[in-house]
């Protein structure tokens, strides 16, 4: 994968990207291994919770309630955060957010000098808006400090998972990236060993130097607490905690969907999130901070703290009653790990930093349905995602709803003329609206496929090639030809012979019972021969 950012406005269709990735057996092996490991860990820690379903229900209700009153809770957050010494900024879209953050970073330097570096905590929201690129363009280099994000950054790669962004890389590959790309004065990484300890040591050396030197940090947020104006980040490594406590300036970028009403709501989220995300009972590091410490001069934490509240199409999603539950997502990634489609392709096929089932519903909506229309179809609707979602987002339902939006786009105006699928499905729909037409279509179908069937060794006819878009089926599968007799024809013939039998029974002709029985059997046999 090249260093090009995952951008839904330019990404190829899911089908096309998936085809390429399916050819990368190393990547598929890595993705399969990692998703299986996390799935098993999750299953273990979820099974030990007797009230897991109640927790999911509580999570869903908190999210639902918050979304219903989002305007209220956002302004409450702004008020309380400001009172605690934070500065709240509102960004209507990605461009707006990028400009605000770049401006704040520039202003954060000592003596009016713009810093040339920032340290960053892993944040999907900043990935969503391609913030690093914007910072780079302004002469500011962003160091990713999350281990996985660091691997991605040094490898000129892109995140493939919302919790474990480098899940598609194995340890040997990571070692190679570190050996090749890690540069630090006075340290030689070229002889780096391959154990987890070696890799962690190298990352620690590399990152500590940044933590101690760089004075401005950029983060995302897992939750915003309206009641207190607090911001919360959960993580596993402690590198986030370094970024939150050491720099003088902290800038946190959060989607407006990240708010929860009260501090106590975190009680539910802190149980749901780690178990779903990494299969841990608790996150190793749960940081919650409220404004800045004004009381002492030498205390922990930043002297200046900004929150950028970003909309970027979230209000539009909220306006759609049937898909607004997309905003309930707490970014645990459980749906990705459980998804049999994601397990095959990994995340890059989705052409967005949000991959997997949640990406398939979130990305097209963030694009306001102008891009990423292939994503709602990147699912077999198996429902595994819904089953594991900690806040009970019915992803299959939303996928179907978005498919409807895509079909409406494809059927509007002249679009319909260039889309054989739309024409075919609309025609088939008419067929089902009349029993007579349906019967005729069954007959025509049988005639149409007649030249395509070939007898196999058992004398049964199968089709091994189909034209046009149906050809996807016969790439790896055969299709049994239609039997000569449909079920309804059999049932009717049977009914007739049974009726005859009953009539004869009434007339007292005992032998007719057997005759009638044989007739029904014969009909049955005839149908059997058709197969």
């Amino acid at each position, binding site marked *: 994968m090249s260093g090009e950012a995952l951008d839904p406005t330019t990404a190829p269709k899911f089908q096309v990207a998936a085809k390429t990735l399916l050819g990368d057996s190393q990547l598929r092996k890595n993705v399969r291994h990692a998703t299986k490991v996390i799935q098993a860990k999750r299953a273990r820690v979820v099974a030990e919770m007797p009230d897991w379903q109640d927790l999911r229900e509580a999570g869903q209700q908190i999210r639902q309630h918050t979304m219903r009153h989002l305007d209220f809770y956002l302004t409450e957050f702004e008020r309380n955060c400001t009172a605690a010494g934070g500065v709240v900024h509102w960004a209507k879209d990605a461009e707006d957010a990028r400009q605000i953050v770049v401006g704040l970073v520039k202003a954060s330097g000592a003596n009016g000098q713009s810093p040339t570096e920032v340290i960053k905590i892993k944040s999907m929201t900043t990935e969503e808006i391609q913030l690093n690129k914007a910072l780079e363009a302004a002469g500011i280099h962003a160091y990713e400090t999350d281990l996985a994000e660091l691997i991605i950054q040094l490898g000129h790669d892109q995140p493939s998972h919302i919790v474990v962004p480098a899940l598609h890389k194995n340890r040997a590959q990571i070692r190679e990236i570190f050996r090749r790309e890690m540069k630090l004065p006075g340290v030689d990484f070229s002889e780096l060993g391959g154990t987890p300890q070696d890799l962690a040591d190298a990352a620690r050396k590399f990152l500590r130097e940044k933590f101690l030197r760089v004075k401005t940090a950029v983060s995302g947020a897992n939750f915003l607490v309206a009641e207190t104006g607090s911001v919360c980040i959960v993580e596993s490594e402690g590198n986030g905690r370094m970024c939150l406590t050491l720099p003088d300036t902290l800038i946190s970028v959060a989607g407006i969907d990240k708010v929860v009403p009260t501090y106590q709501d975190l009680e539910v989220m802190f149980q749901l999130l780690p178990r779903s995300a990494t299969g841990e009972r608790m996150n190793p590091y749960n940081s919650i901070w409220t404004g800045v410490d004004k009381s002492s001069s030498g205390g922990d934490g930043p002297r200046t703290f900004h929150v950028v509240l970003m909309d970027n199409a979230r209000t539009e999603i909220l306006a759609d009653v049937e898909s607004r539950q997309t905003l309930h997502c707490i970014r645990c990634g459980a749906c990705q790990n459980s998804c049999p489609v994601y397990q095959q392709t990994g995340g890059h096929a989705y052409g967005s930093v949000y991959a997997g089932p949640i990406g398939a519903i979130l990305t097209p909506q963030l694009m306001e349905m102008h891009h990423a229309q292939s994503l709602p179809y990147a699912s*077999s609707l198996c429902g595994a995602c819904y089953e594991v979602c900690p806040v009970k987002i019915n992803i299959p339902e939303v996928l179907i709803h978005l498919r409807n939006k895509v079909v409406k786009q494809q059927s509007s105006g002249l679009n319909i003329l260039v889309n054989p699928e739309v024409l075919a499905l609309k025609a088939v729909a008419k067929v089902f609206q009349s029993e007579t037409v349906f019967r005729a279509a069954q007959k025509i179908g049988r005639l149409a496929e007649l030249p395509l069937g070939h007898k196999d060794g058992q004398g049964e006819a199968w089709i091994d090639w189909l034209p046009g878009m149906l050809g996807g089926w016969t790439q790896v599968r055969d299709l049994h030809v239609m039997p000569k007799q449909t079920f309804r024809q059999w049932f009717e013939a049977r009914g007739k012979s049974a009726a005859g039998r009953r009539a004869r029974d009434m007339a007292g002709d005992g032998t007719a019972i057997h005759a009638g029985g044989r007739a029904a059997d014969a009909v049955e046999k005839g149908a059997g021969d058709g197969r």
Partner: protein
Amino acid sequence: MRVSLFITCYNDTLFPDTGKAVVRVLERLGHTVDFPAGQTCCGQMHWNTGYQEEALPLLSRFVEQFKGSEAVVSPSTSCVAMMRDHYPLMAERLKDEKLKTEVAKLLPKVWEFSEFLTQKLGLEDVGAYYPHRVTYHASCHGLRSLHIGDGPMRLLRAVRGIDLVEIENLEQCCGFGGTFAIKNAEVSSAMLSEKVRGVLNTRAEAVTGCDNSCLMHIGGALHRQRTGVKPIHLAEILASEEGGER
């Protein structure tokens, strides 16, 4: 009991043997089966592919055909899931109060075939004989939408002569997904190859399930690869008797 059979459009056209087997099992158990002739399709393919407006008229058709039924039985987990999961919403969309009431009255009487046997009739042993090595494929809609759980397995365990062997990753999707198999043929194939490997690892002679759409997909690959393993709907196993043709 008088049972109305909703055969579903693809079983009617492609898998009539499954319908015959359902009739045979239910009649053997002493029930009467009728077949409302005006039935066509539940609307699943259209609804799930995004053609919701096209699916809507099929709701009224279904209700019209089956509203007088004592029980409706259908040998397809995904079609029954379609009805349970979406018919109430479809009635809502149509803003038809009468239809809404009828749907609410009718849906509790609609049963997937195995569910009807295990839950409505409380049966496990239906007197079947099938002396073959068989593995069971749990279709996603049966598992996660209808929650039929191990019902089909219990029915199978009671079959005389059967050598039932469980497949690895039972709950993993086979990759069919309706139009997904066509629109995302490559990913579907990749998922399918895992399922096929699972089936072959059981060394079963036949793979069974409660949804012929998954079985058509798995069976299509089993045939292409000349494995000799045969897909067979659960109803057809349950219809087999000692001394019968199978």
